[in-house]
Structures are given as structure tokens and as C-alpha cells.
């Protein structure tokens, strides 16, 4: 009964007209950035973060979450129609989705992507509802050593899954930690690494860093190439998949949902990885693996369900432990903090309206997305035809004003441009931005928990090894870090093809 009670609270919050409005804005913008290449959900969320200062925390989180799962829907459209993924989690959809479109079956491909996403999104929200409360209760027993080691483990998994060489990902995380610690010392209020700049007393802002790394640098990388996008000129008809399509897709959707949800809980790009693994599983299970890559509907249904289910799973570590598992959740953590709310085990008790409201809004958002994506698909196809020469100046403009409007200081624009240049160079030199951002957000929390742990244990590091959970986390993290050195294991790490871990 308690559960139904909470659900009631959730609906009463999510169904308020203003929250419905922000939910719609969120999923709408999410679909838009999913469709448009050159700006992803991370960039869009950081752009809109300043606009949430003046609305209620419920509305803010509902809108930002909508951008996240909305982008997963929109990303499939470009994969299927243009063979260019709108965001990294839709890369694998290109393989069979585009082939289906070329064979004149763009309609069912888009249809099954939307339905699969809807079913998977819904299932993962149910999973979130059932798993979050017991996990929160468990998390209440955690102390600083557990938090510190869990964050170490989270960062390590993200680094382990990052593209390219592991030392480079580790460097990014270390640099992110340093950036996160700039500003006043939380314990004795001493300014650290502020170089005498008043603007740095509160630390470097999350928004300028993220917009630089994921907004400006993307535009720069797009400008230097002269890629032409050809939208497949196909008439969209028969969006509803046939009975046979449904029969073929049921298994992939169910497996994709489960896989996506559980991989989503783990740190580091659950959506991206689960879509690839789902594709691999479906191919292996299929009676006709040779049809994969030539336009089979299972190759669209599985991965598209998996990447949507992962978005629900990703909320679990943030909502129950207060530890964001990926960059997008780090942005959400930032949004929570701005409104003076600390996500974690206590949130469900202290802010039940917010907690359950956000979860229920995701369910409503999924219905909105189904309506937005199926009947209105032709509008999104038109959006795809907007040439990049118009788009990139406008994205730059949005970044510039967006970052300025957070604190109304020009200093932030400079910070954003510096990180834009850095992000551009990082791409050229084989570094990835995700570990940096996550470490930046976790840095202050980690330092705080490390110092508290050492104060509790009076300087004895064994506190991290005598507590079972802390010890287990550290051992697992250590294993992941040294595993590339173990022959046979090291090679497998690179097999997972990825665009970005976000």
C-alpha cells in the first residue's frame, strides 16, 4: 500500500499543468537534439541548466530528464534516415535501420524504434520504482569510507569503459579532480588554485566546462569537415509495424529492456554499451544471423530498446546513493545542487514529491514521445534538412548566451572557450571528455569523504580495507585498473566500439 501511496504523490506532482509543460519542453528539445547532429543531450542540458534557476526543482529535473530520454528517441531517426547517428547510443541502429529505409521500410523501422523505446522506457521506470526504495534503505548505512570507495569504483568503471588508452582516461579523471577542487576549501575556507581571481572563489563552473567540451568543440570539429548529409528521399508510409514485425521484435525488445536497465545502473555510458551488446546478442540468438546488417528489424528493435531502458537504470545510483554514473547524471546532480537538494538515500524521505514526481513524469514523457515521434515524424525529417552552415552559428550563439546567463559574468565565456579549444585538441590527441566531467563533479565529494574517513580513523588507511563494502569496491576497482596488463583480458577491453561515453 505504501507503494501506491508514493505513486499517488508522484502523479499529483507530475500531472500539475506547469510540470506537464516542462516535461513536454524537455522531451521536445530532447527529440530535437537527438535528431540534430552536432549537439547532443549533454550540450542541450547544460544550455538549459541556467533556464531552470527560476522554476521549481521538480519542473527543472523533469525537464532535464526529458531531454535525456527524449534524445534517445530522436537519435534513432537520423540513424535510420541519414545513416548518421544523432547521438552515440544510436550508432548501432544505423546498421540495420538505414538498410531497412533503403529497402523502402523506413516506416516500420522508425515505428519499431519508437514502440520499442516506449516499452523499454516504461519497463525501466517500473524497475526503478521497485529497486530504488530498498537500495536507499541500504545506502543509509553507508559512511564516508563506503562513499569514497564507491566513487572510486564508479570512476574506475567509467575509465575502464572509455575509448582509447586507459592512462589517457585516467589523466582526464585526475585533471577533472583537480578542477573540481578549485575554489574555497570546504573545511577551512582557504582559497585554492584561484590565482587571485574573484570569479574562481566558488570554483570553476560545471556549465562552462561541459558546454566547452561538448558544445563548442563539437561545432569546431564539424566546421572543419565538409560532410554533406543526404536525407534519404523516401516516402514515409505505414509507420505501424506488421504482425510479423511484432513477432520478430518481441524477444529483442524484452531482452534489450532487461539488459539496458541493468547496464544502465553501472557507471559509464550504459546506453551506448547496452545498444552494442543487445545487437551482438540478437545476432547470436537469431536463426538467420546473416540477415543482420542487411535490414532486419531485430537489429533495430533490440538496441533501441536497450538504450532507452538504460536511461531509467542510470537514475538509480544518482537517486539512491547521490553518485552520478555518467556525465548526464552529473549534470542532473548539478541541477539538484543548484536548487539546494542533495540526491541520495535521504531524498526519498525528505522530498517524496520530487523523487516520485520525476519518476512518474518519465512515464508521462514516454507517452508524449510516442505521440511526438510517430505522427509527427515528417516534421523531424524536415529539421534534418536544415544545413549545418545555418545551424553551427546558432549553436555557438546559444552556448555563448547560455553560459553568460548562469552568473552574468564574461569570465565564464572565456572558461567555456578555453574548454572548447581543449575539447577540440583532446579529440585530436585521443583523449575523452567524459571521465573529466564526472571526476570534476565527484572531486569535492570524494575529497570530503576521504578527509572525513581519515579523521574518523585517525589517519589510519586500513579503514578502507576492514569495512566489507569499502574493501570490495577497492579490490574491484584495482582489478579493473590492472586488468589491461593481464594478457588475454587486455585485448577484450578494446572490442567495445564506442562513440562517446556520456
Amino acid at each position, binding site marked *: 500500500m505504501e507503494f501506491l501511496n508514493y505513486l499517488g504523490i508522484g502523479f499529483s506532482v507530475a500531472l500539475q499543468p506547469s510540470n506537464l509543460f516542462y516535461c513536454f519542453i524537455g522531451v521536445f528539445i530532447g527529440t530535437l537534439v537527438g535528431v540534430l547532429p552536432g549537439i547532443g543531450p549533454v550540450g542541450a542540458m547544460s544550455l538549459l541548466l541556467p533556464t531552470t534557476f527560476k522554476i521549481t526543482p521538480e519542473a527543472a529535473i523533469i525537464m532535464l530528464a526529458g531531454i535525456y530520454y527524449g534524445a534517445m528517441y530522436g537519435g534513432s531517426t537520423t540513424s535510420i534516415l541519414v545513416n548518421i547517428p544523432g547521438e552515440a547510443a544510436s550508432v548501432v541502429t544505423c546498421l540495420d535501420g538505414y538498410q531497412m529505409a533503403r529497402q523502402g521500410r523506413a516506416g516500420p523501422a522508425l515505428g519499431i524504434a519508437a514502440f520499442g523505446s516506449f516499452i523499454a522506457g516504461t519497463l525501466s521506470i517500473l524497475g526503478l520504482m521497485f529497486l530504488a526504495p530498498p537500495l536507499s534503505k541500504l545506502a543509509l548505512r553507508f559512511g564516508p569510507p563506503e562513499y569514497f570507495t564507491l566513487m572510486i569504483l564508479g570512476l574506475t568503471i567509467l575509465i575502464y569503459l572509455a575509448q582509447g588508452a586507459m592512462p589517457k582516461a585516467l589523466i582526464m579523471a585526475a585533471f577533472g579532480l583537480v578542477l573540481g577542487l578549485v575554489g574555497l576549501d570546504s573545511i577551512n575556507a582557504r582559497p585554492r588554485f584561484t590565482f587571485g581571481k574573484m570569479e574562481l572563489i566558488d570554483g570553476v563552473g560545471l556549465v562552462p566546462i561541459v558546454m566547452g567540451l561538448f558544445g563548442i568543440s563539437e561545432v569546431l570539429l564539424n566546421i572543419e*569537415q565538409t560532410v554533406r548529409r543526404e536525407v534519404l528521399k523516401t516516402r514515409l508510409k505505414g509507420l505501424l509495424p506488421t504482425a510479423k514485425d511484432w513477432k520478430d521484435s518481441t524477444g529483442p525488445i524484452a531482452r534489450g529492456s532487461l539488459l539496458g536497465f541493468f547496464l544502465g545502473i553501472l557507471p559509464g555510458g550504459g546506453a551506448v554499451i547496452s545498444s552494442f551488446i543487445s545487437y551482438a546478442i540478437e545476432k547470436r540468438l537469431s536463426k538467420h544471423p546473416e540477415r543482420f546488417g542487411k535490414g532486419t528489424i531485430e537489429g533495430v528493435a533490440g538496441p533501441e530498446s536497450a538504450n532507452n531502458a538504460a536511461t531509467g537504470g542510470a537514475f538509480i545510483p544518482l537517486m539512491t546513493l547521490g553518485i552520478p554514473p555518467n556525465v548526464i547524471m552529473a549534470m542532473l546532480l548539478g541541477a539538484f545542487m543548484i536548487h539546494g537538494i542533495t540526491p541520495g538515500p535521504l531524498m526519498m524521505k525528505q522530498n517524496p514529491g520530487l523523487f516520485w514526481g520525476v519518476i512518474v513524469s518519465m512515464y508521462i514523457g514516454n507517452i508524449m514521445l510516442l505521440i511526438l515521434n510517430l505522427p509527427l515524424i515528417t516534421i523531424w525529417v524536415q529539421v534534418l534538412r536544415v544545413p549545418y552552415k545555418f545551424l553551427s552559428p546558432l549553436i555557438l550563439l546559444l552556448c555563448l548566451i547560455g553560459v553568460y546567463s548562469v552568473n*552574468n559574468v564574461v569570465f565564464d565565456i572565456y572558461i567555456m572557450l578555453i574548454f572548447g579549444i581543449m575539447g577540440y585538441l583532446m579529440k585530436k590527441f585521443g583523449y575523452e571528455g567524459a571521465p573529466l566531467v564526472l571526476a570534476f563533479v565527484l572531486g569535492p565529494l570524494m575529497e570530503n569523504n576521504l578527509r572525513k574517513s581519515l579523521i574518523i580513523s585517525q589517519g589510519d588507511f586500513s579503514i578502507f580495507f576492514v569495512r566489507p563494502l569499502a574493501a570490495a569496491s577497492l579490490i574491484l576497482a584495482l582489478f579493473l585498473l590492472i586488468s589491461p596488463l593481464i594478457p588475454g583480458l587486455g585485448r577484450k577491453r578494446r572490442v567495445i566500439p564506442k562513440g562517446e561515453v556520456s
Partner: protein
Amino acid sequence: MKKRDIISSLFWMAMGLGVCYGGYDLGLGTFHDPGSGFMFFGVGIILIGLSLIILIRAIKERPAIGELKVLWTGIRWKQVITILLALLLYAYLFVPLGFILSTVLLLIFLFKAVEPQRWRWAILGAIISTFAAYGVFHVWLKSPLPKGFLGIG
């Protein structure tokens, strides 16, 4: 990646040294009571160690011919630099010129620089976009934007 890795590892090594020095300067404290610079110093050491790993690996790697040249052949890197300079100039002039004037000028430049378009479209597009952004951020979201010497906005 040989040369690129050598360059980037040296950069991070310098960064690590700087962070270590800064951390030491702030005070390391003791294990019983870690000081303000404790974590900086530790992370700085890690940065130096990691950059050494990348450096050593890169030195062992066989050199690839024309590896650095790949970074700018076939791509429009001049455009990237021009646009970056324009953005920096925009940040510099944002407050003195005010939002509207500086943004219209920047957008006209960007519309011409990214891919040359007709003047008519560039100017019209810049004015429309600027006022749309002004409407959203200043009028709707009530974000204060600089008026500049003209006092508009």
C-alpha cells in the same frame, strides 16, 4: 600516435608538476588531519606518473610518417582558428558594445565564415537570430544582458 602522445604527455607532466607544487604550497597536513593541499599533491603525483607511462609507451612506439601533418591536411583548420578568434573577440567586446550590437556583428561574421552566404542572408539571419535570442533570454527568462555604450537592451 607517437609524436602526438609525446607532446600531450609532456603537457600533462608539466600540469602535474604545477599541481604538486600548488598542493605543497597550500599545506599537506598530516594523515590524521589532511590539509588543503593534500588531495592536490596526491593527484599531481598521479598525473606525473600517468604522463610518464604515456611518454614511455610513445617513445617505444614506431614512428608513423607524417603523423602530425594528418592533423591539418584535408580539414579546414583555418576556419576553426578564425572562428575561435572571433569568439574570443566577442567575449572581449560583449560588455562594452552591448549584447545586441556585438551579437549581430558576430553572427554576420559566422554566417559568412562557416560557409560563405550572400550578404543579404547573413545580415537578415543575424538580426533575426539576435532578436530571437534576446526575446528568449532577456524578455522571457529575465536574464540581464549588457546594454553597452549605445544603451540598447
